[in-house]
């Protein structure tokens, strides 16, 4: 009865929250556009033959001298801005989602085990988490990036860039999941159903994942959305600083870095349009995260 109501209640709250609706529409539009970029986009920014230098530096349609074919203008190479952004968002979202998934699996497993076993294991995991928290996320990512550059041969490096970046971001985000999972697990450990399961002699793995895990899902879902936004921002930051993805496979951060050069020469759209797009994506994901938190935590309402 309560779950049914709650499910209805989530829908009800959603319908009555304009911010959540707008955020959902924006996020879904961006995600769909990015996922179907090869079919939606005008040109393929990776394929040099699909665009022409003669179309270079065209402004958005509402400015003088625009070509209505390119709604938001083109960059110096003649690439359609919309196409670049959609392809860029595709990469950004992929890295963000992959990093979040790795961080979730790693963090939740460690957090659950730490909360369940307690004692020395808990202490070790949580001290590692503390150390991780003391390092800024960018520093961790830089460190892993540096290690990968040193260890991997140059030809594989280019291929694995995306994965190195993903791993670097995941490793700086897992602490959130581990801490939340541990704290929620500790609460559940005192509940009789867990005590009953231990008493009956069930396997610890089963108690952790079949019994406790579904009960701590609420707070984890909230963190997942918030951390997806962080992961996307982190990737943009790293790419902006030039240690992320190279210019030939641009993510949103790379686009913004490239756009920087044109800021003072009058071609403002090359910087501003990808930036606004990134802001819209991150804000909408964060608003959805806040909404989820309200749904799962009635006390904050």
């Amino acid at each position, binding site marked *: *009865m*309560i779950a049914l109501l709650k499910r209805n209640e989530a829908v*009800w709250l959603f319908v009555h929250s304009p911010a959540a609706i707008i955020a959902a529409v924006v996020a879904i539009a961006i995600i769909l556009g990015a996922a179907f970029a090869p079919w939606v986009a005008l040109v393929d920014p990776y394929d040099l033959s699909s665009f022409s230098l003669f179309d270079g530096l065209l402004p958005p349609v509402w400015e003088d001298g625009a070509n209505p074919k390119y709604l938001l203008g083109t960059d110096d190479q003649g690439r359609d801005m919309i196409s670049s952004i959609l392809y860029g968002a595709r990469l950004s979202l992929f890295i963000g989602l992959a990093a979040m998934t790795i961080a979730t699996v790693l963090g939740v497993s460690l957090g659950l085990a730490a909360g369940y076993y307690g004692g020395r294991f808990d202490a070790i995991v949580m001290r590692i988490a503390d150390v991780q928290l003391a390092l800024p996320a960018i520093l961790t990512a830089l460190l892993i990036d540096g290690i990968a550059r040193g260890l991997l041969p140059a030809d594989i490096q280019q291929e694995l860039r995306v994965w190195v970046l993903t791993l670097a971001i995941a490793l700086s985000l897992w602490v959130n999941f581990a801490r939340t999972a541990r704290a929620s697990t500790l609460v559940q450990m005192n509940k009789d159903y867990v005590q*009953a399961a231990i*008493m*009956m*002699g069930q396997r610890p793995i089963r108690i952790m994942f079949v019994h406790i895990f*579904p009960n701590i899902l609420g707070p984890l879902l909230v963190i997942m959305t918030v951390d997806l936004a962080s992961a996307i921002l982190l990737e943009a930051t790293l790419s902006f600083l030039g240690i992320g993805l190279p210019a030939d496979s641009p993510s949103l951060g790379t686009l913004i870095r490239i756009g920087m050069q044109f800021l003072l020469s009058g071609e403002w759209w090359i910087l501003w349009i990808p930036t606004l797009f990134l802001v819209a994506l991150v804000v909408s994901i964060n608003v959805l995260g806040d909404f989820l938190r309200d749904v799962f935590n009635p006390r904050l309402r």
Partner: protein
Amino acid sequence: MLTIKDLSVKFPSRFGDVTAIEDVDLKIRPGEIHGLVGESGAGKSTVGAAVIGLISTPGYIAKGEITLGDTDLRALTPEQAHAVRGDRISMIFQDPQTSLNPLMTVEDQLIETIQTHSAVSYAEAQNRAVDLLEEIGIKNAAERIKSYPHQFSGGMRQRVVIALALCTDPELIIADEPTTALDVAVQQQVLDLLRDLADRRNIAFLLITHDIGVIAQIADRVTVMRNGKTLESGETAQVLGHPQHPYTVALMDAVPPLDHKIPRFRLPVEDDIAVQSKTKGADAKAWLLAGEQTAPTGLSVNNLTMRFRGTRTSLWQKPDSFTALDDVSFTVRPGTIMGLVGESGSGKSTLARVLTGLLHPSAGEMTLGDANLPPAKQRSRHHPSRRLMQMVFQDPYSSLNARHKIGAILAEPLWLYGLVNDAKQRRALAMAMLDLVGMPADSIDKYPHQFSGGQRQRIAVARAILARPKFLICDEPTSALDVSIQAQVLNLLKDLQATFGLTILFITHNMSVARQMADDMIVLRNGKIEETGPSEALFSKPAAPYTRTLLKLTPKMPPEWRTA
């Protein structure tokens, strides 16, 4: 003095207004303790909240009158209502842990309240605070008043709460379950204090409680509520002794008597909860009776001691340990129910946790049937006792996994112990078992939150029984339930025990419940056994002074009230 007429309170919701109480009439005279009794959800607390003007938003009073003396409480402006609250009407809450501010001394809290309502100097307020504490029976009041709430025991804290309510010399005090969180000895003191205040200061009390024993003991008049309506009202002896309304009759039948053992509770209205089907879970019964399940199994415990490490307060000193169980030895005869009673902190639950292997004892031996029962650290996950010994917990809201369906919860023991290896058979058996414990078979695809507390406790019992245990530990299985539901669950446990020859360790703080269930008894206090022996002998001729005290303090009803 307080008159409530045709009072209705509604709560708007997305599905239209929900009526919390409807057409409630109530009259309380000065110096009268008026008991308001009913099961959870009956609307008792809403009546109290309406009188004091603190109905939680978005609830509102739909109609009716509330007058205190000559004042129409509904006509007051918010400021006037605020002045009446605390000044003429005070409130005592259930939990003294949370109704006092832990960061302020008792003195500050009392003085703050006194000065809010009357313009007196600090010194005068201080004197009054000390006098108040003395009046409610706190010794060395002048010294103790400087303490913080946590430095008082539970009963003393509730006295402080009462002192706070008395600060302004109110005409009416609303006491919402004032003794529910307290042990019987402390409960008795608090009730005596309330009676004394009503007589001496002529204060009227609205005593809201679900405990009929409490009402029987101190209330002058009583009103019985159910589903937001008042069913019966009048002199306590009249209403409880000669109940007219069928619900009141049923309620009185469900109250476990302390002075004699009844074989089974009479339940004329097994209405909404128990579904009696024709088969009565015959399949489950046959399955449970089959197999090696024949001879009952006893349990014996020798010199069991459990010490907990204290909190370290110094880097060099070893912390003092706390002894929760001190050299406890007893034997549960095969096929009988052993009652274990004691106040909170006496070590009852610790004993259950040591037996079930959740806590490792410091010393002592346990034997289940003929086999040694290894302590927690040596008991493997596959030890046979994991199946033979099952437990029913106190709180049915936390003992069932909220994210699992009933079917999965019930199938777990069958699957875990390899009793039934086919998923379809497990499901069929789980359904038959639901039938056996009086639940509809379609419950199997629902989640625990879709059931009431009593229904959940039935499911918890079903889960325990499905493991084909020989020994069942029930840790306060009914203390979270209403009295009529309690009677149903106790009946169920008795039936199952008789059918399957179970041996039960029945833990409770309630002497009356223990009397109804137990063949033998243990009285535990501070981890030590005070008295043990056959239940009838212990209740009729208690040997230990502590047992006598417990029996004397348990609220009971005059024998002539018995309708049976």
